[in-house]
């Protein structure tokens, strides 16, 4: 006798593979308009630059050479490491890393706090955290700039309260970029950690307390290791977009705080651009991100192993 699912004709589960062609539009769209472009970008990074943008189809390592190697102004000095771009990347990684750290320091307590509210209140708290995520990032960044500029409401307010004597310049500093990244991606930190804490078995904390661990030791020894997949997911979700961010450094940082995003963008604007170099920088950025994602995949599969037979 056939089961209820198979008695309507079609026979067995044989119709299931018929659904696979439904994936065709996905394959085609993402394949043609994302995978293929990324592959072409890789090719582009090995081409020769033409003035006024565009390329000549001569394969060369010039773009990567320009990125990593310093041959002096006229190419006649002994090659040394070119620090300019590495420094920009390093600054971006540093900025993104700091932003991730700050998001974690604020996001974890927030996520924990929300997840430990009575179930009926959690929805409202989450709603409050997600609203900014739905607001246009450009508008949020502009708003932040408006708030923190020299004679903006923040400075004026603090001066009126007597906290400050003179306005503090934030715009066009590293701190402003830091604040911008933090502000842009904070909800990305809260949401995955919240999801992890909500599933956390609080009996584990009780067991730790029962075995003589204090509150903060419990946090370090039990809670953080157990909700680690959520923390790592949150860190990735903040770190990756921060690394390639364009709006926060551009609007809040100005020229002094040049980051990868602006470096790449510049290569495709106007006649000063260098498309192969921009493509090469993009390739390097993508490699960094893939490394970060691999860290994530490792920790996620570890977590899956732990929970396997629970």
């Amino acid at each position, binding site marked *: 006798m056939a*089961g*209820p699912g198979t*008695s309507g004709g079609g026979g067995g*589960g044989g119709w*299931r*593979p018929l*659904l*696979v*062609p*439904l*994936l065709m*539009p*996905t394959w085609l*769209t*993402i394949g043609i*308009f*994302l*995978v*293929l*472009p*990324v592959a*072409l*970008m890789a090719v582009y990074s090995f081409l020769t630059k033409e003035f006024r943008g565009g390329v000549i189809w001569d394969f060369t390592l010039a773009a990567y050479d320009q990125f990593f190697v310093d041959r002096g102004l006229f190419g006649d000095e002994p090659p040394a490491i070119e620090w300019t771009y590495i420094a920009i990347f390093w600054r971006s990684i540093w900025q993104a890393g700091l932003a991730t750290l700050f998001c974690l320091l*604020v996001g974890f*307590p*927030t996520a*924990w706090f929300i997840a*430990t509210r009575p179930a009926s209140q959690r929805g409202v708290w989450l*709603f409050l955290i997600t*609203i*900014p995520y*739905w*607001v*246009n990032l*450009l*508008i949020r960044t*502009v*708003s932040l*700039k*408006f*708030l923190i500029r020299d*004679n903006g409401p923040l400075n004026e307010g603090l001066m009126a309260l007597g906290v400050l004597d003179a306005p503090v310049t934030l715009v066009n500093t590293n701190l402003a970029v830091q604040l911008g990244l*933090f*502000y842009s991606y904070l909800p990305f930190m809260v949401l995955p950690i919240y999801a992890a804490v909500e599933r956390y078995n*609080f009996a584990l904390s009780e067991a730790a*307390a029962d075995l003589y661990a204090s*509150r903060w030791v419990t946090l370090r020894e039990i809670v953080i290791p157990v909700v680690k997949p959520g923390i790592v997911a949150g860190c990735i979700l903040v770190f*990756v*977009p921060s690394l*390639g961010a*364009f709006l926060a450094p551009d609007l809040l940082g100005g020229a002094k705080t040049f980051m*990868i*995003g602006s470096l*790449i963008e510049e290569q495709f604007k106007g006649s000063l651009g260098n498309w192969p170099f*921009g*493509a090469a920088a*993009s390739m390097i*950025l993508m490699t960094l991100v*893939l490394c970060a*994602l691999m860290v994530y995949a490792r920790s996620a599969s570890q977590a899956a192993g732990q929970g396997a037979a629970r």
Partner: protein
Amino acid sequence: MSRGVRHYPGFGWMTVLCLVILYAPLIVVTVYSFNGSTSITTWGGFSLRWYVDVFTGPEAPRFKAAAWNSLTIALIAATVATAIATAAAVAMHRAGGFRGRSLTFALINLPLMVPEIVVAVATLIFFTMVGITTGYMTILIAHITFCIPFAYLPIAARLQGIDEGYEQAARDLYAGRGQAFFLVLLPLMLPGVISGYLLAFIISLDDFIITNFVKGAGMETLPTAIFGSVKQGIKPNIMAISTLMLAVSAVFVTLSYLVNRVGRKSP
């Protein structure tokens, strides 16, 4: 034991801090958009003049055209992306373990994993190489592509929670495959589809970097137009536009929240 293992001193204050940081800029801009003064620094009393300026001022035609582009692109991109994502979700969750399933999963999520700026560069290079002139069409194509995973996530999440028994029961009661889908599965997954649509719409409306790369000369969407203006300094009319867009976002979140609530009540 005073407050139980769930309580950590200071976490409540961190939450408050978190909300203050997230909301302060938005609230300040909303308040200042009603400023009657021409200067953005001084308060000149409550006024709607900058809202009037947005619709009738010297920059009005530019913003109107940009808003129209943004809106139509978001509508079309969200619709197409949701259709593609719905088909994909059904295949991923109802076709069993076919070959290439995990590869497909990675492919769907690829736009989320590659940094936006890299997608922007790659897409620009692609269109240039194939010889498609950048403009409305290229923006639309790029938006459809990166909206797919955003539409997919809520739909797949919803579909995962729907027992296959419903479709099987429908099939058992003489429904054809198509009928089982349209009469049983689709209504059940509708909250997910709507959530996905709203998310894709907002994401399209939100995008700046990719659009900025593939828009071509003379073509503007609202974010690129605003960005262009802001480069010359924040003017009060930008704050009025920002507040309007904030309002649109607020409507969308509320819609999505309500859809999710209704969705949670049904199975």
